[in-house]
């Protein structure tokens, strides 16, 4: 291993951007459950993630310090009264990705908070997972998230998933006369004397007003911002100042803060996604040791020989050894502001100018496919929704440019987690890809389908309307890009239904993109994951 001093030198600010030269090593790119090893054309700009920031030395101490020195609120102990009704609301399994090695930071926060509550005579406590219209977490996932001790004490009566379809479980705080603006939250939370929101911030679009306004809402409330119009008006989901999505969430969040007392505890992680054995994935290929190269080839070979389901299982079973880089607490806005600063510090790499062609390697996981399959709609949302938006308001790709995704684009769906996705993909997309038309014609039907509502409430399925949200989520990228090519797609019909071109290899995709944009087209590769964002100057 290189000494720390040398590593630091290697990873100074400038070194996150590498221009490919003759003799540059091939790049290791995620492509679903495996990797591609690709030589890129000379002159390609490769943007690497920053090295992980150092974590706080003592997480529990950082949590205690944060709740005793909150932003814009009294310390937590001063808000607790014996006999009061308190609800802890917890972010769900969609963050972080992959799930973090235990103990999860949410467990650490809850251990501190629950101990403090016990000391203050507060025992009417519920723990609610803010899963909004996401799938319910399974018992095993819930146990893993909060640890055995808390799980045993609270599950299932006082530790459960939010149910956005429970007619008795939702309270409307505000509603405009036409019903287009609804502020609704979980009833238990609305009737609590104090809510403690336990957050884990993965990217800048998490946390803040989104936590309460989205996580505990119902379909009527989410419609205000989960729609094509809002997405089209958002220049990036990650930059609050340029996000209509953030503004609408803010409006709902402010209404919640007016009615309810919420104490936010937000935590931020570094981008250490890979632990021993796979930590070479954090490095630039130029810095691979012989051992790293050997490990990479062995891993690639093993994954290629496994059935896809087995490879998925192996990859899903590797937790990420994230470090907590900061914990802040208090009122919604000042707390989140601190988190945003930390988040940008970790993720942002400044780059000069946009590119004609941008390559996004798509990994095996998304916020909506933990312990499941990255189905075609989720590939779409990763490429055109999330990766396209990993910027501060100026996309990496030029308007009308080409986005290349590396993924097999297999036609596989999980009927347990994504039942309504199957219908959406096979019935709606062949008819239209226009998000506005889809919203008008199909949204109510999918949202209210009693079978999907049942599977959401009683099974572990995403809500019926969720695939439509996934389609809207890609709207920003879809409107911006001139062409999308999926390199390595193993069939024709999935790319065709999504409105994309396909090629067998990345080289062919680059050739086709150059045919579209011109021979001198500039190319960038966002070498993700770990997470990286760009600040395009």
């Amino acid at each position: 291993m290189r000494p720390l001093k040398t590593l630091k030198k290697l990873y100074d600010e400038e070194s996150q951007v590498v221009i490919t030269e003759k003799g540059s090593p091939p790049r290791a790119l995620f492509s679903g459950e495996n990797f591609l090893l690709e030589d890129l054309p000379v002159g390609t700009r490769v943007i690497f993630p920053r090295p992980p920031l150092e974590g706080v030395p003592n997480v529990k101490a950082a949590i205690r310090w944060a709740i005793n020195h909150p932003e814009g609120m009294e310390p937590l102990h001063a808000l607790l009264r014996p006999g009061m009704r308190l609800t802890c609301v917890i972010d769900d399994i969609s963050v972080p990705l992959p799930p973090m090695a235990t103990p999860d930071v949410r467990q650490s926060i809850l251990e501190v908070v629950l101990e403090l509550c016990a000391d203050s005579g507060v025992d009417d406590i519920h723990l609610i997972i803010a899963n909004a219209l996401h799938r319910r977490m399974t018992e095993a996932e819930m146990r893993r998230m909060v640890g055995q001790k808390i799980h045993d004490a609270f599950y299932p009566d006082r530790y459960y998933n939010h149910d956005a379809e429970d007619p008795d479980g939702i309270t409307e705080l505000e509603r405009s006369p036409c019903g287009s603006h609804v502020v609704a939250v979980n009833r238990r939370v609305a009737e609590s004397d104090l809510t403690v929101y336990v957050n884990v911030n993965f990217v800048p679009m998490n946390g803040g007003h989104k936590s309460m306004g989205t996580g505990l809402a119902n379909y009527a409330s989410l419609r205000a911002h989960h729609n094509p119009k809002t997405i089209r008006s958002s220049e990036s989901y990650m930059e609050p100042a340029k996000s209509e999505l953030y503004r609408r969430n803010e409006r709902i969040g402010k209404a919640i803060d007016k009615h309810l007392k919420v104490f936010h505890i937000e935590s931020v992680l570094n981008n250490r996604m890979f632990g021993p054995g796979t930590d070479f994935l954090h490095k630039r290929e130029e810095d691979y040791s012989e051992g790293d190269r050997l490990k990479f080839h062995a891993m690639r070979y093993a994954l290629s020989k496994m059935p896809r389901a087995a490879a998925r299982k192996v990859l899903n079973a590797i937790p990420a050894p994230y470090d907590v880089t900061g914990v802040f607490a208090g009122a919604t806005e000042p707390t989140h502001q601190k988190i945003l600063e930390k988040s940008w510090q970790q993720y942002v790499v400044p780059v000069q100018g946009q590119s004609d062609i941008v390559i996004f390697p798509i990994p095996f996981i998304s916020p909506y496919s933990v312990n499941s399959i990255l189905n075609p709609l989720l590939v779409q949302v990763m490429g055109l929704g999330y990766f396209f938006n990993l910027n501060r308001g100026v996309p990496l790709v030029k308007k009308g440019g080409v986005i290349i995704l590396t993924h097999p684009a297999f036609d596989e769906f999980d009927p347990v987690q994504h039942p309504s996705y199957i219908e959406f993909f096979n019935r709606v997309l062949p008819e239209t890809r226009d998000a506005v038309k889809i919203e008008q014609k199909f949204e109510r039907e999918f949202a209210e389908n009693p079978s999907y509502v049942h599977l959401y409430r009683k099974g572990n399925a995403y809500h019926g309307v969720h695939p439509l949200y996934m389609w809207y989520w890609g709207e920003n990228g879809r409107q911006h890009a001139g062409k999308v090519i999926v390199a390595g797609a193993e069939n024709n019909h999935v790319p065709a239904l999504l409105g994309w071109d396909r090629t067998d290899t990345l080289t062919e995709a680059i050739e086709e993109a150059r045919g579209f944009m011109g021979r001198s087209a500039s190319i960038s590769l966002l070498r993700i994951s770990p997470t990286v964002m760009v600040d395009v100057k």
Partner: protein
Amino acid sequence: MDAKAAFYDVDGTLVKTNVVHVYAYYAMNRGSLLGMAGRTLATAASVPLFAAMDALDRKTFNEFFYRYYAGLSEDRLISVAEDMFEDVLKPALYEQTRDLIDQARRAGCRIVLVTGALDFSMRPLARHLGADDMIANKMQFVGGKATGKVIPPIIEGANKANAIRSYCVREGLSLDQSHGYSDSASDYAMLSVVGRPTAVNPDMRLRAIARAYNWPILDLK
């Protein structure tokens, strides 16, 4: 949005019973005490035969089996139906049945039970679930006594689909927007005719069909 309905098969879909149980209950609750004992034994002996016939051909089975009602008075059948609901159907309802039906109602669906059982035997269940309508077999009565014949067409298989289609036309409902729920591959026609079919606790054949057509599969508890 078009008016729509949710059509529910009953046996095995909403309740954990099938028509054989219903028949057995009736057989055991008619006539004198001695006769009842004899019939109970006879019924117990013939239940496996009925079950096999039901699996083989639902239509023949229904025709065969309804002959046993011949000679019973309408009043008697109705009162036994009330008892049967309390004793057999109500305890056999899946816990999640009511949630499923309530959700369909909230989505603006008219609730319709579609069953091969006789209408009088299902009426208390329909009332209990708050169903708006019922498509069921009707027993022929002459002078207040059951003849043992069912007024055609017998509601089963493809006839269920026809009945649903006619119902939608008559009531001005959109078949495409309507939902269908069943547990059995024998209701394949009924599920195919509605725009939104769902397999509920499906048998092996229906599970395979549902997977092939990407219909949602619910496992009611």
